[in-house]
C-alpha cells in the first residue's frame, strides 16, 4: 500500500507577468533532473484569440533540487516553434515529454495540434532534439514521428517517453471516436504504446493498454510509467465523456501495474491520491508525472480546470509494490 501526501501547488502561471505567450495554464508537467535543479517542462497558452481559440506552447520552470518549492528560473521563450502552414503542429505543441538519447542530448516527444473543419482539432506526435541542455529544441522533421494508422485514426496525443530494457517506449493516447455531446464533438481516447530501438522508427503495439472502468467512452490520458520493485507502475488520468469540465465527471488519477509493459492490471483504488475537499485541486486532478529524487518519489499533477492555475506536488508514502 502506498499513498501520496500532498505538499501544495508548486507553480502558478498566472503569476508570470511579463510573458504574452505564457499567460494561462501550466499543463502536463514532465521532469528532467539536473545536478542542482529539477527542470519541469509544461505547456502553456497565450490568451485566446477573438474566436476564443487557443494555441499552446511548451516551456519549463527550474526548481531548486533541495527545495522544490523554490523557483530558480522560468523559460523566457517557448522551447519549440509552432509548425508551418498546413503542418501537423501549426496550432500547438502540447504536451511534451523528454529523455536523454545515446549522445546524452535531450530529446523531446510532443503532440502537435492542427485545426479541422468538422471537429475542432487533430493531433499527432512529433520529435525534437536539444543541443543546449533542453532550453530549446529543433524538430527532427516537419512531419510527425508517430501518425495515424488503420487502428489509430486520429488524435494521437499525450506522449510519455521512457527507456526500459535497452529500448525506447512511447506511451500515448489514440482517439477512438468523436462523440457528439450536447451538439459538439468530443474525442474519446485510450492509452496505447509503441516501442523502438532508436526512438525514431516506431512499432505500435496496436492495443488498448488500460481497460475502461467508469464507462465505455471513458477518456484516458497521461500514461506515466515508472519501474520500481520489479514492476512497472502506471499513473494516468481518466474522465467521463460528457460534462467533464466540472467536479462530478472531471478527471481523476488512476493506477495500473504490469510486469511486461504489455499486460496491465488496473486498480484505481490503489492510486493513493484523490481530489481535496477544498482548494486548487478540489474538483479534478489529472496529468500525473512521477519521478525519483534524492531517494524519494514525487508526483506532479494538475488541479481544477486542467492546469489553468498551475501544478502541484505530492510525495510518496509507502512503497510502489
Amino acid at each position, binding site marked *: 500500500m502506498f499513498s501520496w501526501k500532498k505538499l501544495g501547488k508548486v507553480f502558478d502561471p498566472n503569476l508570470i507577468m511579463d510573458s504574452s505567450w505564457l499567460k494561462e495554464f501550466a499543463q502536463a508537467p514532465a521532469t528532467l533532473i539536473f545536478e542542482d535543479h529539477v527542470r519541469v517542462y509544461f505547456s502553456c497558452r497565450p490568451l485566446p484569440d477573438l474566436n476564443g481559440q487557443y494555441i499552446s506552447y511548451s516551456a519549463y520552470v527550474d526548481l531548486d533540487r533541495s527545495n522544490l518549492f523554490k523557483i530558480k528560473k522560468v523559460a523566457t521563450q517557448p522551447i519549440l516553434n509552432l509548425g508551418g502552414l*498546413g503542418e*501537423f503542429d*501549426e496550432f500547438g505543441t502540447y504536451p511534451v515529454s523528454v529523455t536523454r538519447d545515446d549522445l546524452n542530448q535531450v530529446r523531446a516527444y510532443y503532440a502537435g495540434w492542427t485545426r479541422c473543419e468538422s471537429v475542432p482539432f487533430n493531433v499527432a506526435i512529433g520529435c525534437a532534439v536539444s543541443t543546449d541542455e533542453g532550453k530549446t529544441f529543433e524538430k527532427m522533421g516537419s512531419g*510527425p*514521428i508517430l*501518425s495515424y494508422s488503420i487502428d489509430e*485514426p*486520429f488524435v494521437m496525443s499525450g506522449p510519455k517517453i521512457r527507456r526500459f530494457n535497452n529500448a525506447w517506449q512511447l506511451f500515448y493516447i489514440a482517439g477512438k471516436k468523436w462523440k*457528439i455531446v450536447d451538439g459538439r464533438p468530443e*474525442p474519446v481516447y485510450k492509452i496505447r504504446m509503441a516501442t523502438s530501438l532508436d526512438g525514431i522508427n516506431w512499432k505500435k503495439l496496436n492495443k488498448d493498454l488500460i481497460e475502461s472502468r467508469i464507462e465505455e467512452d471513458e477518456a484516458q490520458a497521461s500514461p506515466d510509467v515508472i519501474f520500481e520493485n520489479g514492476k512497472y507502475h502506471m499513473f494516468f488520468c481518466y474522465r467521463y465523456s460528457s460534462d467533464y469540465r466540472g467536479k462530478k465527471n472531471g478527471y481523476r488519477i488512476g493506477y495500473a501495474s504490469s510486469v511486461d509493459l504489455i499486460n496491465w492490471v488496473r486498480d484505481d483504488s490503489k492510486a493513493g491520491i484523490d481530489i481535496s475537499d477544498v482548494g486548487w485541486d478540489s474538483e479534478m486532478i489529472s496529468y500525473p508525472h512521477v519521478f525519483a529524487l534524492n531517494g524519494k518519489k514525487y508526483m506532479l499533477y494538475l488541479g481544477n480546470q486542467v492546469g489553468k492555475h498551475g501544478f502541484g506536488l505530492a510525495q510518496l508514502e509507502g512503497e510502489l509494490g
Partner: protein
Amino acid sequence: MKWRKIRKIFDPTEHSLPNGCVEYAQSPQALVFEDFIRIYFSTRQVDAGGKYLSHIAFVDFSKDLNEIIQTSGDEVLPLGSLGSFDEHGIFPINVVRNNDLIYGYTCGWNRRVSVSVDTAIGFVVSQDDGMTFQRFAGEGPVLAASLYEPCLVGDGFVKIIKGMFHMWYIFGAGWKKFSADSSPDRIYKIGHAISQDGINWVKEEARQIISDRLGADESQALPSVLEIDGIFHMMFCYRESYNFRKANGRGYRLGHAWSSDLINWQRDDEGLALEGNTGSWDADMQCYPNIFECDGHVYLLYNGNEFGRHGFGVAILER
C-alpha cells in the same frame, strides 16, 4: 510512347449516379473482368455548406470500350466517420486483384482550417467483385504524413510484382502562399513504398522518384504504372503549383517516365504529343491518367478540362 487518342467515352451528366452526384467523373481506374471492364471514378456531391464531397462510383464497359453496360446505382463505399481522414471525400480509388478479393487504395480528404485539406491513403476490401468495398480493420489510413512527408499523402497506385506490393503515391512537400492575397497552394511529388501484405507499408520516405520538369514548384500527381515488354512505364500528371485552374498553360498535362529496375526512373514526356485540339474536351487540361492492358491492347484513361468535370476519355498505345 506513342498514344492515339480515341475519344471521350464517359460523360457523368448523362447517367444517374449514387449519392446525388451530378458532375465530375475524375481519376478513372480500370479493373478488367472476363467479359467487361469496370472503371471506377470519383464524382461529386454538394454538401449543405456548398462544398464538394467526392464519392466513388463505377461504370461497366464492353471490352472494346464502345458500349456502356451499367453504372453503379448504389453506394460503392461510404465516406469516413466524423473526424476521420476520409470524412470529406474519397478521390481517387485504385483497385488491385489479390486472389479472390479486390483491394482498394483510397485517397481520403479531410478539411482543415488554415489550409483547405489534408489527405491520407486508406485500405478497403471488396468481397463481391468490386460492387462494394468495406473498410479493413479500422477507420484510419495505411499511409499518412510522417517525419519528412509532412502533409498530403495520397493518390496511391498499387501493383503486385514478384510477390511484393509496390505503391506509387504522392506526398506533400509543403504549403506555400505564392502571393499575399492568395489562398495557400500545395506542392506534391511522387514517391514509392513497398509492402509484403498490402497493408503494412514501408516508405522510401521523401524520395522524389520523378525529376521535375517545371522546377521545384512543379506538382506531380496520380502515378499509374504498367509493365510493357519488360520495361515499367509510369504515366502521371503535373502542373504549376499556383494559378493552374485556368486555361493558361499552367494546368495539368500528362507526364511519362520509365524504369527497368523500379528504383531509377527516367522522365520522358517531351514526345507524348497528346495535346488536344483547341476547343475540344481535353484541350485546356489533361490529368489523372490510368494505364491498363486488355485483350492485347494498352489503354490510357484520362480526364480533360476542368479536372474531369465533364468526364473521361481514352487513348490506345500504338506499337
